[in-house]
C-alpha cells in the first residue's frame, strides 16, 4: 500500500528571510583552499548569476548551497535552516524544495526520460496518474514531450540538459540551482537552454543560483525577459536590465564582485574589467 505524501515544506517560516545565506564559508580540498571566506545572500525571487573563470570553485559553491558538500568553516543557511549542522536525513527532506541542474545533466542512464523526470515524484509515492501528468507538463515546458520513452543515451547533449531542467522543475521547487547549464553546448543550443531558464524565471518567479563562465548567457539573462503575451523571449528596452538578476563574481576563491548588472558593467576592478572584455 502506498501513501501519497507531499514534498516536505522548509522547516522554518522563511517568507521574509533570504533563501540562501553564506556566512564566511571556507572550504579546502587536500589542503588547497578552493573557496575562502565567502559571504552573500540570495533573497526570494532573486536570480543570482555566479561568474568566474573555470576552476574557481563555482560548482563547489553550488554543491555547498544544497548541502552536497560541507564547508570547513562558516555557516550556510537554506530556507532558514543551518545546513552545515543538519542531519543527513533532514537534509534529504529539505532538498525536496530545491531543484538542481547538474553540469552534464547527470540523468540516470538506466532510466527512461519519463522515469528520470518523475523520479522525485515516484520517491514520494505520488499516484501514477499524477506523476504522468506532471512529467508531461514538465517535458512540455522544455519542448521534449516526445522523448518520454527514450533513454538519456539516445538524446543529444542539449536535449539531456533540457530533460535535466524538466527533472529539476517537476516538483515546483522554491530554489533552482543551475550548474553551467550551457557548458559544452553549441551557441544555438546554449541559447535554447538560456531561454528555458528565462522562461522558468519569469513564468514562475523561482529563486535561482546560476553558475556560468559564458558572459553572453549571463547578459542575456540580465537583458531579456519572457513575454506572456507573445510567449517568446524578448529584449528589455535599451538601457534597462532585469532588476532581480544580480551577479556574483569569483576570483581565486574569493568574491570580487556582488551587485547588479549596472554595477558590474561599470566596475573599476581591473580583474572584472579584464574578465568582461
Amino acid at each position, binding site marked *: 500500500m502506498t501513501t501519497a505524501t507531499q514534498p516536505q515544506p522548509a522547516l522554518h517560516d522563511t517568507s521574509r528571510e533570504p533563501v540562501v545565506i553564506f556566512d564566511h564559508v571556507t572550504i579546502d580540498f587536500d589542503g588547497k583552499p578552493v573557496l575562502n571566506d565567502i559571504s552573500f545572500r540570495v533573497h526570494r525571487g532573486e536570480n543570482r548569476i555566479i561568474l568566474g573563470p573555470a576552476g574557481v570553485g563555482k560548482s563547489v559553491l553550488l*554543491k555547498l548551497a*544544497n548541502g*552536497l558538500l560541507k564547508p570547513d568553516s562558516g555557516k550556510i543557511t537554506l530556507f532558514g535552516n543551518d545546513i552545515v549542522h543538519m542531519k*543527513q*536525513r533532514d537534509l*534529504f*527532506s529539505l*532538498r*525536496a524544495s*530545491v531543484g*538542481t541542474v*547538474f*553540469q*552534464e545533466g*547527470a*540523468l*540516470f*542512464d538506466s532510466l527512461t526520460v519519463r522515469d528520470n523526470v518523475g*523520479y*522525485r515524484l515516484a*520517491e514520494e509515492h505520488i499516484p501514477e496518474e499524477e506523476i504522468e501528468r506532471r512529467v508531461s507538463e514538465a517535458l512540455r515546458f522544455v519542448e521534449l514531450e516526445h522523448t518520454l520513452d527514450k533513454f538519456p543515451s539516445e538524446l543529444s547533449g542539449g536535449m539531456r540538459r533540457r530533460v535535466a531542467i524538466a*527533472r529539476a522543475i517537476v516538483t515546483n521547487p522554491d530554489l533552482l*540551482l543551475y550548474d553551467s547549464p550551457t557548458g559544452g553546448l553549441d551557441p544555438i543550443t546554449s541559447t535554447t537552454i538560456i531561454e528555458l531558464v528565462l522562461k522558468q524565471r519569469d513564468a514562475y518567479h523561482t529563486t535561482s543560483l546560476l553558475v556560468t563562465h559564458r558572459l553572453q548567457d549571463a547578459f542575456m539573462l540580465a537583458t531579456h525577459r519572457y513575454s506572456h503575451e507573445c510567449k517568446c523571449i524578448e529584449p528589455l528596452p535599451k538601457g534597462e536590465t532585469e532588476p532581480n538578476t544580480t551577479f556574483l563574481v569569483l576570483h581565486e576563491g574569493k568574491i570580487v564582485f556582488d551587485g547588479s548588472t549596472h554595477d558590474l558593467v561599470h566596475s573599476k576592478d581591473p580583474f572584472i574589467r579584464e574578465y568582461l572584455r
Partner: protein
Amino acid sequence: MQKTGTMPIASLDTAAKRWVLSVQEYALLTGRALVNIFRRPFYWSDIVMQADLIGIGSLPIVILTGFFTGGVLALNSASTLAQFGATAVTGQLVSLAMVKELGPVLTSLMVSGRNASGMASELGSMVVTEQIDAMRALGTDPLKKLVMPRIVSTIVMLFFLSIVSDAVGILGGAFVSAAMLGQNSSQYFHTAYQSLVFSDVLEGLMKPIAFGFIISTIGCFFGMNTHGGTQGVGRSTTQAVVYASIIIIATDFFITQVFITAFGR
C-alpha cells in the same frame, strides 16, 4: 642526507593515515547501509532486482564451477585413496571439502569476480557522472537506495548459491566416481551423507553469509569512493575484486579456526 632519510617515513605516515581513513570510511558506509535496513522507505523492488542480477545471473557459473570442482576432487582423491585401498571414502572426502570449504569459497570468489566488480563499476560510473550527487540532490539517500539492496541481496543469494554449489559439487563427484572410476554410486552418496555433522553444515552455511557481506560492502565501498573519471572506474573495479578475494580467503581461515576451536573439527 637528512632529506632522503625522512622521505620514506613521511610517505609511510601518509599511506598509514590514508589506510586508516579508508577503513573508517568503509566502516561508516557499511554501518549506515545496515542501519538503513531498519529505516523507511524500504526498497523492495531494488532488492528483488539485485537478487535476480546477483543470484539468478550467477547461477550458471556457480553450477559449472561446483560440478567440475566436485569432479576434480573425486578424480584426485580417488587416485590417492586407491593407494591405501580406501576409495570407498571418496564421497566423504568430496562432501566434506565441498560443504565446509570449496562450495562457499569458490562460489564467493566467482560471485566476487562477477558482482563486486559489477557493483564497483556501476556505482563508480554513477559517481563520476554525478548521478550519485543528483540522487542526493533529489532527496534520496544513495546508501539506502543503492548500497543497502546490494548488501541484502548478495548475502541472501550467496547463501543459496553456496547450497547449490555444494549439491552440484557432490553430484559432480558422484558422476566422476560412478561413470569414470567405476565406483558404487550409492556407496558414494552414503559416505557423503554419513560423514557430515551439524557443525560442518553450520560452517558451510555461515561462511557465505560472511562472504556475501564482504563482497557487497567492498564492491559498494570502492564504487562509491571512485575518483578520476573512467580510469578511476577501472581502478575501483580491479581493487574491489582483489580486496574482496583476499579478504574472503583470510576470513575463511579465521572462521575455520573458530569452528575447529568450538566444535573440534
